[in-house]
């Protein structure tokens, strides 16, 4: 029988297979953060212990200050308490973790791959919807809630119904100025914010294969923005070379055993996909969003669409409300939209290559709007500084911060002001996402840097 990559990993993790409804699935790695306190509280209330603390890993990221590495310098006493509470929960559960002051601290979906915690063929969960990021290394990785997090800590398993299979195939060479972020925004706009609900996506095709690890992580990261909890890519030598030698990766004989198995992890030629979406990679342009859902976007040389032309009533109502919130008229050229602030960071775009792309645009220039650059981990921060990227950002007029989720989730106090329009490399343009009343336009790091320099949305392909 022909199997998909997802089928192969799923089947090796079935503790109690059921024909109907959810099966009991084994979980290899569970990553936790400050927000996991509900799960720890629930464990204590029920007098349950962690079954395998060594299969859990913790790092604070959502609430951490990015101007300091001290909990007492957090945005408020209440926010600072989240970090102290995290340390206590790690100690209570005897969970391996990085503290805020540890240089290896960073965003959960950045440090998982960086430390070799995420391995091909494994099942990884975290109470964060962008956990699909880890699928870029050939894992089944998905976001869970606090109740599920508690269940995993107590039993190392989860009841899950198998999703349907969707393949997103992108072939062809990328044009200059087009990045992985543009690819995934194009996919989301193509299939819609609910387009992949109930499905696990496998990204395939020559465009995907040509991406480096960081680009693949960006692609899989935003699967949830198309509705899919899961997004993965078959692991290849690019992945194996990346994992080799990482602190938590297998060593010696174990590495050889692992590698032999990992090479079998790809969809069979005749594997069945319930849905297939095909895009021409060579036709994709730099993308920006104009609305309040990640599928409300268009190529930068386009215009804001007219909601009146939508056939579906619910869609028309939503698009009209989105434009009202964003304070944009239908028909506006995207390049004419002025911005007030820029944010470069998040689990989508805070890795070294993202920072290099932004710095390439900013080198020798000044920004017209305030903003911050927030690396995904302390190790990325150090690597960027070794290349002098920090000096490029600071000379351009941006703030250079320490690692955390920062303005993507705006839980740590890093936020925009009401009414501000933000050019952001994050993953969600939801109403109020970057602070109450803020208006977010999603784009790639290079596009965000260009918008900051010009003071309005800009086409990085026209960059001198």
């Amino acid at each position: 029988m022909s199997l998909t990559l997802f089928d192969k990993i799923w089947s090796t993790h079935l503790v109690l297979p059921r024909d109907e409804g959810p099966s009991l699935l084994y979980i290899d790695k569970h990553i936790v953060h400050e927000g996991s306190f509900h799960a720890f509280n629930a464990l204590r209330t029920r007098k349950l212990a962690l079954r395998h603390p060594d299969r859990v890993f913790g790092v604070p990221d959502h609430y951490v200050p990015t101007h300091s590495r001290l909990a007492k310098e957090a945005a408020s006493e209440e926010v600072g308490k989240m970090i102290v509470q995290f340390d206590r929960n790690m100690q209570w559960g005897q969970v391996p973790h990085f503290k805020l002051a540890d240089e290896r601290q960073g965003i959960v979906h950045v440090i998982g791959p960086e430390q070799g915690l995420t391995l091909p063929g494994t099942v990884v969960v975290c109470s964060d919807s962008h956990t699909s990021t880890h699928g870029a290394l050939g894992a089944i990785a998905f976001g869970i809630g606090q109740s599920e997090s508690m269940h995993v800590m107590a039993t190392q398993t989860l009841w899950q119904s198998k999703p349907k299979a969707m393949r997103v195939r992108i072939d062809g060479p990328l044009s200059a100025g087009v990045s992985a972020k543009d690819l995934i925004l194009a996919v989301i706009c193509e299939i819609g914010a609910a387009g992949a609900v109930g499905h696990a996506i496998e990204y395939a095709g020559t465009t995907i294969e040509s991406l480096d690890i960081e680009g693949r992580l960006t692609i899989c990261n935003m699967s949830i923005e198309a509705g899919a909890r899961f997004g993965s890519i078959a692991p290849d030598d690019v992945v194996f070379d990346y994992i080799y030698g990482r602190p938590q990766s297998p060593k010696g004989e174990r590495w050889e055993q692992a590698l032999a198995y990992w090479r079998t992890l790809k969809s069979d030629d005749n594997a069945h996909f319930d849905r297939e979406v095909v895009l021409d990679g060579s036709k994709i342009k730099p993308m920006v969003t104009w609305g309040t859902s990640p599928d409300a976007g268009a190529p930068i040389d386009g215009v804001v669409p007219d909601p009146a032309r939508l056939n579906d009533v619910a869609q028309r109502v939503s698009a009209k409300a989105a434009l009202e919130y964003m304070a944009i008229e239908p028909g506006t050229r995207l390049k004419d939209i002025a911005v007030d602030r820029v944010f470069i960071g998040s689990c989508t775009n805070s890795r070294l290559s993202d920072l290099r792309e932004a710095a390439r645009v900013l080198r020798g220039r000044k920004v017209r709007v305030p903003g911050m650059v927030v690396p995904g981990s302390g190790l990325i921060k150090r690597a960027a500084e070794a290349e002098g990227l920090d000096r490029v950002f600071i000379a351009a007029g941006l703030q250079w911060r320490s690692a955390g989720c920062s303005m993507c989730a705006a839980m740590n106090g890093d936020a925009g002001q009401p009414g501000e329009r933000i050019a952001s490399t994050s993953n969600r343009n939801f109403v109020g996402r970057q602070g109450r009343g803020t208006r977010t336009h999603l784009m790639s790091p290079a596009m965000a840097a260009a918008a900051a320099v010009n003071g309005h949305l800009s086409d990085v392909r026209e960059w001198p």
Partner: protein
Amino acid sequence: MSRSTVVFEPLQTLTARALDLPGSNIDTDQIIPARFLKKERAAGYGQYLFFDKRFNAGSDDNDISPNEHPLNATEPPKILVVQDNFGCGSSREGAIYALVDYGIRVVVGTGFGDIFFNNSFKNGLLPIRLTPADHLALRKDLSPFGLITVDLVNQCVQASGHRASFDIDPFSKTCLLQGVDEVALTLGHEAEISAFEDSYSHRFPWLTPPKD
């Protein structure tokens, strides 16, 4: 599931006031803004439900005033009828806490965010997926409030003379009917989990954490 303890009020049948809520792709950031997720659950999350939509902004979150939002009505609904892809976005279970603590037991739509859908059952919230035709017929007389009857035992929902059946997997149905989640059930499978772990560590030795 006799070993299980009840963790929420069982749901069998419910005839209650329902509210028709407009807008597709209502994300969990709207259902509960991120700044409230650090609150302890004990004090209740109901006040945070759709906070930025229900309350006019003041200088801070203590300086607010309720607006005309239907969720501020004197007689609050127990059922929400929502548009497609309700609960998309962030995995925050706080969105479910806010709905449940407010008093919502059933959400009726055409499709939900996958993580939201899973989180619902663990907290005694029933998400019902209907076909677009049934969904339209059911909300015909909601303006925006009306009565809806939900019968989980027979898996049907009824309003305005229209009756529609819905699917639910038997496992989740049993949990809701009894007011339990699956933790106790899973703990009852300890022998199977241990046996699985033994064979798993032989098959994938590189995944067994090294002993210090």
